[in-house]
């Protein structure tokens, strides 16, 4: 029970020693600065080579080429140029020896809150379509690096699930070290979060101020009312456009919320709907049918297996947990076979994380579709690669290893669905953003420098000695531990 800030006076003699150690320390800082200076840990990616050749891997293409053994992948200027045997490398290519290893597309998380500054929920209203996650992307989130280290390259940053119609999403690539704008995936269609069930009706928050809706019946009416308003707003604008050259015609007042919903009606914005029970899934499918739009994905969708045919018929994707259940009443009927069953019925299924921890091992989530329901291994890997790419509308750019697509790939030291396998390297657009070997060799320098700085600080009697190291952290360094599935369960 050491008291903080207790000053111990040193003798004059020890001051010289302290000065000497500071001088030594400064020298150490200079030599160590390339390793671990502020902002350089975890390691930043080295500049992208013009070309990279991965040689001798088992390549899970998740595309028409299937699984290739002892194969090479050549990428030039960020794009995949060729996949095959015995490819020749351009003179300036970086060669990655991948013999005995496995190469897969970069993993994609269709449901993440890892890289958002502050609260992921605008709680106030039941419809907050005007707010934008794109405005609050957190490029400093350590989750970016931790998830890269699990093979993740792309993530759908979603608004929370407190409202029937939530905020706009931001699809990012995990370009660790980039600015917030630099993380945004330019080619991704815009989207928006919807939410059904216990969260928008706030079943589990006794302390929350009362807000409509309180039932699933009310959730439907909120969505319906907003789309009717959006339709009227759209008509008002079209009438204005048709008659604006005439006299005394005034433009409607711009409404950012309804404008967003009009984009949905026009098929220009993808709906990602947090949902669990079959009744609410079916409700939104029917409502979308009435308003003539497609729900791009149902998120979580843990009873999706009960209405798999309806989902398939509507062309809606299912972005699900592999095996979470029983944390709320509405997920008591969740089963881990759901991904396999929905796939058999023709639904495009992905497995997501909704968790900065789970996002570090989505390959193992895919393995659960093999275990539960017997999905073929090559198909199972698509649950975290090609299928989320399709759901996010970016399958022409990422999700599989095919010529012309982005060179986003992961090198594994073993079978990608094995629990004993770990991620060795993660590349995005032909640039190596994670390298386990480099991480391991540089962490020693970082830890040594940290110890040295702590020692300096102790010598200066400015901080309490805490052997575990208290971690002061400004709020903007939010580590992104939100899970909307749990937002009402774990306060």
């Amino acid at each position, binding site marked *: *029970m050491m008291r903080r800030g207790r000053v111990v006076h040193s003798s004059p003699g020890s001051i010289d020693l302290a000065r000497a150690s500071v001088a030594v320390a400064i020298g150490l800082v200079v030599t160590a600065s390339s390793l671990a200076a502020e902002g350089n840990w975890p390691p930043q990616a080295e500049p992208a080579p013009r070309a990279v050749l991965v040689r001798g891997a088992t390549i899970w293409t998740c595309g028409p080429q299937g699984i290739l053994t002892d194969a090479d992948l050549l990428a030039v200027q960020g794009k995949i140029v060729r996949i095959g045997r015995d490819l020749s490398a351009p003179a300036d290519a970086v060669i990655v020896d991948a013999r005995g290893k496995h190469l897969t597309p970069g993993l994609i998380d269709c449901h993440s809150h890892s890289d958002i500054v502050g609260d992921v929920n605008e709680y106030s209203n039941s419809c907050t379509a005007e707010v934008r996650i794109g405005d609050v992307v957190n490029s400093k989130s350590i989750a970016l690096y*931790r998830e890269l280290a699990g093979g993740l390259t792309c993530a759908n940053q979603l608004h929370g699930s407190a409202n029937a119609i939530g905020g706009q999403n931001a699809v990012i690539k995990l370009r660790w070290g980039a600015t917030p704008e630099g993380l945004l995936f330019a080619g991704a269609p815009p989207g928006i979060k919807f939410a059904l069930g216990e969260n928008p009706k706030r079943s589990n928050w006794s302390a929350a101020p009362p807000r409509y809706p309180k039932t699933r019946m009310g959730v439907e009416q909120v969505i319906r009312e907003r789309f009717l308003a959006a339709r009227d707003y759209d008509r008002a604008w079209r009438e204005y456009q048709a008659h604006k050259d005439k006299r005394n015609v005034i433009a409607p007042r711009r409404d950012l919320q309804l404008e967003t919903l009009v984009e949905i009606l026009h098929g220009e914005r993808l709906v990602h709907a947090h949902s669990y029970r079959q009744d609410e899934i079916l409700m939104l499918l029917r409502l979308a*049918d009435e308003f003539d739009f497609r729900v791009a994905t149902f998120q979580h969708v843990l009873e999706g297996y009960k209405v*798999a045919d309806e989902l398939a018929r509507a062309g809606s994707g299912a972005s699900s947990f592999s095996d979470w259940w029983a944390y709320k009443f509405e997920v008591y009927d969740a*089963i881990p076979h759901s991904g396999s069953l929905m796939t058999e019925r023709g639904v495009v299924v992905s497995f997501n994380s909704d968790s*900065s921890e789970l996002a570090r091992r989505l390959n193992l989530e895919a393995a659960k579709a*093999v275990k539960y329901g017997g999905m073929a291994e090559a198909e199972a890997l698509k649950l975290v690669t090609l299928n989320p790419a399709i759901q996010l509308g970016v399958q022409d750019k990422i999700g599989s290893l095919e010529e012309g697509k982005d060179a986003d790939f992961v090198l594994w030291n073993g079978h990608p669905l094995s629990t004993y396998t770990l991620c060795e390297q993660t590349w995005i657009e032909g640039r190596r953003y994670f390298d386990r070997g480099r991480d391991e060799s540089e962490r020693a320098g970082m830890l040594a420098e940290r110890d040295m700085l702590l020692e300096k600080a102790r010598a200066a009697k400015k901080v309490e000695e805490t052997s575990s190291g*208290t971690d002061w952290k400004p709020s903007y360094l939010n*580590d992104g531990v939100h899970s909307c599935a749990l937002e009402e*369960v774990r306060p």
Partner: protein
Amino acid sequence: MTTNVRSKPCKRTLTPRVLGAAAAVALMASVAQAEFVALVGGTIHPVSGPPIENATLVMSDARILGLGRDIEVPAGARVEDVTGLHVYPALVDANTVLGLVEVSSVPGTVDVSEMGDVNPNVRAEIALNPDSEILPVTMANGILVAMVAARGGLIAGTAAVIRLQGWTWEDMTIESPVGLVVNWPSMRIDHSAAAKPEDKQIEERDTKLRTLHAAFADARAYVKAVSAEGTRGIPQHDRDTRWEAMRPVLEGKIPLMVAANEIQQIRAALKFAEDEDLRLVLLSSGDVWRVADELAARQIPVILGPVHDLPDRRWEPYDSPFTVAMKLHRAGVRFCFAYGADAFSAAHARNLPYQAATAAAYGLPPEEALRGVTQYAAEILGVGDRLGTLEAGKEATLIVTDGDPLEIRTQVKRAFMAGREVDLANRHTRLYEKYRHRPPPAAAQTPVAGRQSSAGKSGP
């Protein structure tokens, strides 16, 4: 005992004669009338020794009679061909609230944390729901045994080792109490903006520490007073269930199980256990590896979990939670795995073996990972004489798989709980079977009555 059987070159009929003496005495009565079950042709993984291919395991009346390559199947035994499959001891989750929670967000289904700070008399096993849907789901992945304990307050209650199947909570209870669970107060001062003032934090922490010390002092005084009853002139003391419940800990019969992740907490708990002369088991994750050498030197076992976790601090290596087990192993600390002790984790405890595998991916020898969910768990929980390995005389609580149980893609094909086969069907397999046979709906149809917005449709 396994080696005894295996080392005999000739085939032997399994009678008590070939068993170890202690086991023979224990089994004598039952063998005469019991049914024999023989698992034949599989690879047996005793865990206490190397795998034995094409081997036979014979069980009867809840016990393993023998196993090895040269075992003769007793006449009249039920022979189960497990050729191509693997036999392992049942997996053990060494710290959970399985059976005490059903739906973690519905308070009526959660019996995890009692009110108040001092509840040594609270017993986990009496609140087990044998029909919890979570239990069969967990067993389907090979976890048949667990330690359960209450979580709340400072002295949370006593822990029990349970089987995940039984007609009643008494059936389910293998051993109780196996420990007294204490949540060590946080020793760290929180300097964040939302935190209470520092002196307030210190006051609260010190109050808790005083409460803890006082509870032990009172319990000792109580035991002394009660022991003195009958001595001339000493009246009978009023009975107090709290202090009665602490007797086994004070007498060293069961360990104090301290939940602590911070170095300061762990060091404080070590000191406390030393001062009070108590056996100690740590329920830890996070920073526990930083004191590994001290724990090894003092032979303090650790129940470790979860592995699938985030580093506690921004600057820490991304894989730090994955490497804790490897670091404990290298330092010589005895440890086993637990999935997670909170209410949310109970439903997901079936993923325990995959946490152990992640520790192996990041440096723990794979055979140590397996022991961490079998043998070491049983030993640390005090039931290593009955469970945790496949050996003659031990309880026939085992699983039959088509591969390594620490691999997700492996299927648990069969399971035996104390010699009786467990039905691996569960809520999930039932719902799967039901809905995979749902016929396709007739046609795409939206009931016209449901088209609430159609009348208002506008635009071109």
